[in-house]
């Protein structure tokens, strides 16, 4: 596929991109708090069991796009959270186990209901999994004289609700996220905040369902927040950075999906996973930096060992043996190439020199000062 064809495709489907980006933003905002509160797998449970809510509501209203269906399904998501909480409060099972028992049950019932009663309806299992963001612009709505995709409008409304909630209750959310006990001591109801947060994630999951499907919405919710959590140190920057990640993931996923002609929401989830992996590897405290630091610390330790050894033995009768250029490696119990490499580094730093006459290592003036400093540093 060449560039003109690609731009042709984009001009036909830019509305899908808009829907994707707005969905990603709405999810990422709420997702930050889910990541911070350790509720990520609860959102997974919500996104699975919302399906049962949608199916049940569908049996009542017989219209997939009715707002009642969305509301009913969102309520069902809250009911899931409530069941998980109630189950783990009995003390019979742990919280993780409660999550693991509630959502498979709801999901199984939904699958049974779909396959038994709703085979030919607008609900099929493929749509449940990935949604069809490429088809979403086909369902349109007239608003202010403009013809807009329905999914775009409903997603925009959810985004605005989420934004308003976070802006209005920012102080409370912050307190409740970072120090729940203090928040309760100040008289904020943590249950009310918890359930409003959960209702919003449930609503977001239900509305995103059209665009991205039940399972991949987890990626939209959690991945940007998780990336931002790794690199940010304040809530404000975290919210902003996660928004950036969300938009970037959606955009790159959309372009790649067009280019390879594959599932869009799947591609966005894949890109989100990759961007998380890159962030995890490359950030300032990431895995690669940790490995480099670990290596460097190890090398510094060996250099210190060598300096200590030379300092301890210089001026002693055994020094020609202990500090000999040829024999030092034996006394340090290192390979001779390694001790030569270390001595080269120390020489470059001006800590040691080789005395020509006896060909033994000696500390320079600077080296002796360094020797006494590390001695006190190591507490010897």
């Amino acid at each position, binding site marked *: 596929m060449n560039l003109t064809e690609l731009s042709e495709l984009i001009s036909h489907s830019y509305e899908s991109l808009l829907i994707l980006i707005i969905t990603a933003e709405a999810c990422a905002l709420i997702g930050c708090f889910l*990541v911070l509160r*350790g*509720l*990520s*797998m609860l*959102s*997974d449970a919500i996104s*699975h069991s919302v399906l049962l809510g949608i199916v049940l509501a569908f049996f009542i209203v017989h219209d997939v796009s009715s707002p009642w269906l969305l509301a009913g399904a969102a309520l069902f998501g809250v009911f899931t959270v409530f069941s998980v909480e109630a*189950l783990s409060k*009995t003390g*019979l*099972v*742990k919280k*993780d*186990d409660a*999550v*693991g*028992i509630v959502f*498979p*049950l709801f999901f*199984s*019932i939904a*699958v*049974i209901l779909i*396959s*038994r*009663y709703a*085979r030919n309806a607008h609900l099929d*299992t493929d749509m449940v*999994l*990935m949604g069809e963001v490429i088809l979403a612009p086909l369902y349109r709505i007239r608003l202010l004289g403009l013809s807009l995709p329905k999914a775009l409008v409903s997603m925009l409304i959810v985004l605005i609700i989420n934004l308003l909630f976070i802006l209005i209750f920012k102080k409370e959310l912050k307190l409740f996220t970072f120090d729940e006990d203090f928040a309760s001591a100040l008289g904020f109801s943590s249950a009310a905040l918890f359930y409003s947060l959960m209702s919003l994630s449930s609503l977001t999951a239900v509305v995103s369902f059209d665009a991205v499907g039940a*399972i*991949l919405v*987890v*990626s939209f*919710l*959690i*991945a940007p*927040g*998780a990336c931002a*959590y*790794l690199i940010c140190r304040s809530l404000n920057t975290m919210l902003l950075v996660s928004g950036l990640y969300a938009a970037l993931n959606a955009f790159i996923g959309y372009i790649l*999906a067009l280019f*390879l*002609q*594959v*599932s869009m*929401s*799947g*591609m*966005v*989830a*894949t890109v*989100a*996973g*990759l961007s*998380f992996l890159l962030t*995890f590897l490359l950030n300032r*405290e990431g895995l690669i930096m*940790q490995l480099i630091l670990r290596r460097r610390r190890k090398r510094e330790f060996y250099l210190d060992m060598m300096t200590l050894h030379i300092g301890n033995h210089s001026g002693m009768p055994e020094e020609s043996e202990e500090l000999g250029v040829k024999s030092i490696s034996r006394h340090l119990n290192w390979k001779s190439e390694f001790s030569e490499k270390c001595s080269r580094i120390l020489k470059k730093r001006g800590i040691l020199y080789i005395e020509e006459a006896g060909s033994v290592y000696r500390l320079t003036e600077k080296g002796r000062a360094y020797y006494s400093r590390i001695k006190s540093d190591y507490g010897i």
Partner: protein
Amino acid sequence: MLDFEILGSYTFLVVAAGTFLLSTAAGAVGCINVLKGESLIGDAIGHSAFPGIVLSFMLFMQRSPLLLLLGAVVSGSTAFFLIQCIHSNSKLQLDAALAVVLSSFFGMGMVLKSYIQGNPDFSKASQSGLQSYIFGQASYIMRSDICLLLPVSLLSLLLLLLFYKELKLFVFDREYAETLAIPSGLMYFIDILMTMSLIAAGLKLVGSILISSLLLIPAIAALQWSKRFDRVLILAALFGGLSALAGTYVSTLYEGMSTGPTIISIMSLLAFISMLFGPHGIIANIRLRRRFLK
């Protein structure tokens, strides 16, 4: 009343044998994961096995159960390794790492699947069965699938029996186990091997989304009845096997009841009953409270 005509039919016997083997083994093995507090890792592995299945189909152009199993094991293990690596090398909590890995692997599976669907190169090999690895299609399993399930389930049960003592120590008191020179690396490996192979082998029956509950729910039900490891293992295997038979029967009886979800619904029902009526269950608790109030 039981319908004996169904009970004797060939399809019922094959499906029942498959689900029974899988659920029995999964029930027993799942106890280890639940007791270790890692019940949601199975969920992540189950979701993550999906792209491996599609990839293995793309590579070999056929749906032999063994090759697909290998693909599932490879991608499930990759996901498991990634989760552990992220969890131990960053400040991110385990559940966020789980959520990110499982959703992006599943997304990758979706991408690969849609790539196959639109690609004429793959139209020759039949790919219609791939869908069944998401939701499970127990009613379509064949003898070749049983031939795979039988050794996998028996092998994991055998491993469990062989290393029963060591695994028990490893689960309840890892430090003590290490002082007795029981290598925790090996125990980890055995645990992962059993879990992974059961998940991979069972994907076709119950699908990648629900497979983890076969490991989890019988264990939870069994834990309500006993505090002894050996009894819990036996009970969990029993609960798993029984609900598999009952679920298969119900799904054969009524059209449209998918087997995997039916089995899991019955399992959950058992678990809830156990929670209500178990010796430390909800009803017992209420009675106890009453007696103290008097």
